[in-house]
């Protein structure tokens, strides 16, 4: 049956999912093919049933080129059936491999008996089961509302689809702002909406619509919303991960859902451990943290430079399992309202999670709330439980240090600062003017790629103060610094090494202690090897052995004048071995940071 759908294909697929090794290949018709962001979704029709299908972004080109067409037939070769989150009765298929069987047919294939299961029928069944779970009081009207409404997942919305209804929780709300522009005056506010699948979208309302919905749309409540309009999101002002943003006008419909349970994930956090905050200092990204409140300051009044207004501020100190503390400045309402709450419960060392904090460099690292920041005290999430049990068992007693103090260039305990301020070598090559005013510090993981054998690798140093010594008259060596003549000198390294990583290469300068770690022997020993005669050049061998070894470096970058030209100078402040488990954790964090969080 080459040009038709597999009979009962969808039913077969759904029933075979329990024994997962068999994946029947079925032919289905593509219905309602539409783009969602950069991927496509469609409803697969086998003549009897329909199931939602999501195609990966890799197949988008096949759709655009016309190979996969709406109303056409495709054979599903590799896929997984997943539950639609929050809806245990429906599944969707995530197809990873398929092949085109036929191009667009004339119409939707229907069962020979002429009965087609339309989505509305399925939805009635859902609301019937919902009705059983309803509370007795308001069951009738709520169930009636649910029956006539088909809820669309936020991820399926697009500017080209007119009639949709979404069921969302307000997870963030901005204040009403008044503005004046060329067209006149107005007021505006926005809300962040999250649906059951966790997808988020920003919705903005102006003037009449703003006034109409400002009081209705309360934080934390669930609403059915329809008749809004979508457009591509303005990247500069993106607060949530969504290709689109929504605008509601006076004709939009907003109805509160009073009784139905909605399993909307509360606020989606992406926590940064305190000891990794260094990398975000003065960046424009806002971050989330979670920690135990160790102390709460009284409210202070700070004069805002822009308009001389006095605004309240309160500082709290947070600690987490990395045994580091950081100061978070709460501003305005957060300082007065929430801040007071925290002060009252300070002796219980509550856990707070804060979303959208700005990272500054006051005292090394400091966090500040912005108007968008969202604070939850003792949130009901696994990270909070973990923190609570850590603090109660060991955290309370451990002495911790402020994250800012680890930012100093002290070379000895470089290991603590090795996981903050992490950059790739491309950061140095693409920013030639780094460290123009004062030196900047970074940590980076790289391979030694080249050590020039015929460079000046060492200098004669005073054994006491390590400064350069000069040959004294007749014999001995004179140290200008100590104002003493020494019998002997010691050799100390001053070496240029080339390093490489996957993003580029750079030249580092290494002094004695760090170079010793790289080469594996003292400068005196290396000089001895250099002067040795013999078949094997032990000196070259020693350098070769040091090449292509991977290290974790802490470096300072500054500008040096060289022939009246400014050149970037990178100096190694400390070297340490790679801790593979810690590096892997960093990589995992980077992967999840770069992941496109739109789920479909």
């Amino acid at each position: 049956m080459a040009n038709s759908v597999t009979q009962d294909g969808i039913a077969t697929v759904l029933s075979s999912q329990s024994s997962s090794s068999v994946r029947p290949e079925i032919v289905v018709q593509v219905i309602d093919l539409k783009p969602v962001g950069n991927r496509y979704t469609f409803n697969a029709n086998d003549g009897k049933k329909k199931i939602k299908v999501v195609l990966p972004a890799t197949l988008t080109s096949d759709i655009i080129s016309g190979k996969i067409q709406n109303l056409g037939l495709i054979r599903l070769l590799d896929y997984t059936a997943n539950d639609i989150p929050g809806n245990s009765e429906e599944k969707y298929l995530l197809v990873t491999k398929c092949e085109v069987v036929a191009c667009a047919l004339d119409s939707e294939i229907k069962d020979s008996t002429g009965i087609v299961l339309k989505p509305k029928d399925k939805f009635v069944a859902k609301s019937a089961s919902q009705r059983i779970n309803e509370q007795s009081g308001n069951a009738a009207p709520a169930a009636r509302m649910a029956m006539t409404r088909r809820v669309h997942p936020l991820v399926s919305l697009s500017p080209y689809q007119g009639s949709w209804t979404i069921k969302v929780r307000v997870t963030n709300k901005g204040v009403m702002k008044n503005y004046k522009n060329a067209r006149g005056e107005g007021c505006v506010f926005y809300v962040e909406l999250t649906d059951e699948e966790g997808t988020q979208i920003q919705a903005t309302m102006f003037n009449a619509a703003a006034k109409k919905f400002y009081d209705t749309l309360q934080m934390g409540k669930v609403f059915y919303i329809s008749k809004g309009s979508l457009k591509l999101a303005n990247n500069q002002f993106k607060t949530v991960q969504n290709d689109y943003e929504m605008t509601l006008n006076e004709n939009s419909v907003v109805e509160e859902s009073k009784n139905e349970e909605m399993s909307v994930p509360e606020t989606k956090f992406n926590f940064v451990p305190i000891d990794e905050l260094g990398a975000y200092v003065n960046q424009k990204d806002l971050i989330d943290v979670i920690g135990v409140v160790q102390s709460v300051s009284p409210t202070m009044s700070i004069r805002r430079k822009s308009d001389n207004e006095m605004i309240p501020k309160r500082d709290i100190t947070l600690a987490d399992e990395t045994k580091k503390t950081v100061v978070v400045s709460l501003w305005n309402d957060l300082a007065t309202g929430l801040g007071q709450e925290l002060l009252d419960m300070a002796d219980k060392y509550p856990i707070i999670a804060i979303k959208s904090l700005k990272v500054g460099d006051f005292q090394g690292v400091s966090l500040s709330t912005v108007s968008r920041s969202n604070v939850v005290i003792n949130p009901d999430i696994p990270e909070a439980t973990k923190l609570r049990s850590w603090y109660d068992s060991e955290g309370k007693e451990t002495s911790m240090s402020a994250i800012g103090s680890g930012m100093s260039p002290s070379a000895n305990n470089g290991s603590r600062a090795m996981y903050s301020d992490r950059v790739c070598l491309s950061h140095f090559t693409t920013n030639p003017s780094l460290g123009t005013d004062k030196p900047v510090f970074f940590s980076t993981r790289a391979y030694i790629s080249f050590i020039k054998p015929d460079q000046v690798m060492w200098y004669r140093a005073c054994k006491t103060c390590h400064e350069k010594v000069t040959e004294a008259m007749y014999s001995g060596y004179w140290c200008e610094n100590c104002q003493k003549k020494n019998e002997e000198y010691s050799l100390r390294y001053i070496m240029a090494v080339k390093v490489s990583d996957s993003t580029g290469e750079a030249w580092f300068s290494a002094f004695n202690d760090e170079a010793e770690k790289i080469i594996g022997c003292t400068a005196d020993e290396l000089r001895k090897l250099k002067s040795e005669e013999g078949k094997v050049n032990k000196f070259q061998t020693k350098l070769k052995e040091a090449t292509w070894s991977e290290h974790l470096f802490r470096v300072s970058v500054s500008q040096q004048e060289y022939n009246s030209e400014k050149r970037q100078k990178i100096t190694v402040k400390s070297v340490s071995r790679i801790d593979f488990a810690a590096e892997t954790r960093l990589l995992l964090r980077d992967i999840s940071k770069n992941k496109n969080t739109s789920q479909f």
Partner: protein
Amino acid sequence: MDTSSPSAFVNGSLMRRYIGQKVRTVVQVIGSDVGSVVGKSTDDLQIFVKGSPPTTPTTYLEVIGIAESENSIRAEVKTNFGNNFDPLNYNELCKLANGEFKHFFI
């Protein structure tokens, strides 16, 4: 690289997707007997390994073999992975290798 017999990276909960197929996983050895090893997977589920443990076993053991059920493997290759192994990192690898980066793996 010998790709004739690929094995999928799994943890305890991913095993059920590969029943009858070749898998590889790392377990923390909880107990061993003649001919079998009981291990804890990187996501804290119990895994039974059919096959004698190596003579001097370490805390972590990598097992490559056929998944006979959702919690047992008939081992073909067993390798000591030492005592310092980060199970959380391995667990994340399994999730990524079977999830959005599945196309990177054979």
